[in-house]
């Protein structure tokens, strides 16, 4: 992270996402991956940070189905990526109540629109192409 005048952690993340990549950071001082993207590594406070691209494979750590009025139940889940970081996301292509803890899932990009930037979602591994 050279200068926040030039690029931001969120900006780099979204640029990767635009290429279909799920990016995360590793602190090279303690070799620990972290997420969400930051300008300085947690704990060490180091700027010695490397961006890496995840293989996009992970496991559901926990899950719920949110019942908004007039909508089908909406999945919200926490995904543990194989590289060792966790993120909130949604598992798609499956009934929200059928998303199970321990289920293997694969990343893909949910396309954004004029109001919402693209963001990462997941699909069960057996559905992934």
């Amino acid at each position: 992270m050279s200068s926040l005048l030039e690029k931001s952690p969120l900006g780099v993340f979204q640029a990767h996402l635009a290429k279909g990549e799920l990016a995360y950071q590793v602190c090279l001082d303690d070799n620990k991956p972290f997420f969400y993207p930051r300008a300085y590594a947690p704990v060490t406070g180091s700027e010695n940070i490397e961006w890496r691209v995840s293989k996009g494979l992970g496991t559901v750590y926990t899950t719920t189905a949110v019942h908004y009025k007039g909508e089908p139940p909406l999945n919200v889940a926490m995904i543990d990526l194989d590289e060792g970081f966790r993120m909130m996301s949604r598992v798609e292509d499956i009934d929200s109540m059928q998303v199970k803890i321990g289920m293997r899932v694969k990343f893909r990009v949910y396309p954004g629109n004029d109001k919402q930037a693209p963001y990462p979602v997941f699909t069960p591994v057996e559905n992934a192409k």
Partner: protein
Amino acid sequence: MSNPNLAGLQRGSVAVVGAAESDLGQMAAGTQPMDLMAQATMRALEDCGLTLKDVDGLFVAATQVRMGPMAFAEYLRIKPKYFDGTIIGGSSFMSHVAHAQAALQLGLCNVAVIAYGSTQRSVSRAAASPRDFNPFESPYRPFMPSTAYAMAAMRHMHQYGTTREQLAEVAVSARKWALLNPKAWEKEPLTIEQVLNARMVCYPLTVRDCCLVLDGGGAIVMVRADRAKSLKKKPVYVLGTGESLSHANISSMPDFTVSAAKESGAQAYAAAKMKPADMQMLSLYDAFTITPILFLEDLGFCPKGEGGRFVADGAIAPGGKLPVNTSGGGLSYCHPGMYGLLVMIEAIRQVRGECGQRQVKGCDVALAQGNGGVLSSECTVIFGSESTL
């Protein structure tokens, strides 16, 4: 280990001498959060026989009044010598107790008021507690805070076999206590089946697994122990406090089945020189039915994972083995957004022996557990009567 944030705090150096709720429920149109704060404050001062002129320490946190100490000092037209607006959600007020103890001990102030007010029922939760936009959570539309607690419950169920019926037992126990509290919002009995069959909010939590959404406020008055004895009511001493921040957003919670109450509780026990078995009554922040289960484990009343089985068969209901949330809790008594002050007021009243039908016999020690955000901030206060000094 004492409260490591405030290692100089001395057991029993300060006491709560006044405690009161504002009106609770649904206020008249136009009622402002600070009207409720002021009502609670004046009632709490009346409770101990002090006046507004005596107040020189002001501790305020509220979601609808972002700069609480400044705004409330203006409302009251007082100039506090010491003020603190620490805002870490529903546990803010337990944190204020620790900070007020420090300020009182150092002589930075002599009479500390901790106050809260909310009109979240009147203006809606969305308006009363707008959430920060988070680019790594908001796109998924979590219904916060319910979604976070639902995910914690799901992980606990997966890891330890906790059941929806056991979660429901927490709500049913709270309702039984509420029926003994004339100030409680809920007036009708509740069954496990009714909890399970209620409207689903975030699986596995139905609306009956979630706290009430009401208007209300509270205030407590604290002074040094030497002054406390000359006031109207029996002093309730602060024996120990603990404060711990774990995360802010649920995505960053390290283990969804372990709360930072493990740390805040250990700090408070060490400061009070007491252990879980010494607690005669627990006031545990019950925003959702999963939270008392986590706190019973993390505060040492049962092993990790056993909380669901611990609360089964009425163990925390009236007549059970451990009195928990005797007011009826946030689930059935009142939950005005940040409920921590009311959590403490019930513990204080139990130590005073003012709880009427729901009074725990010979209650000299009570533990109040505050919880803020999405299991994010955990703060503990242990209160004791004079006999515990």
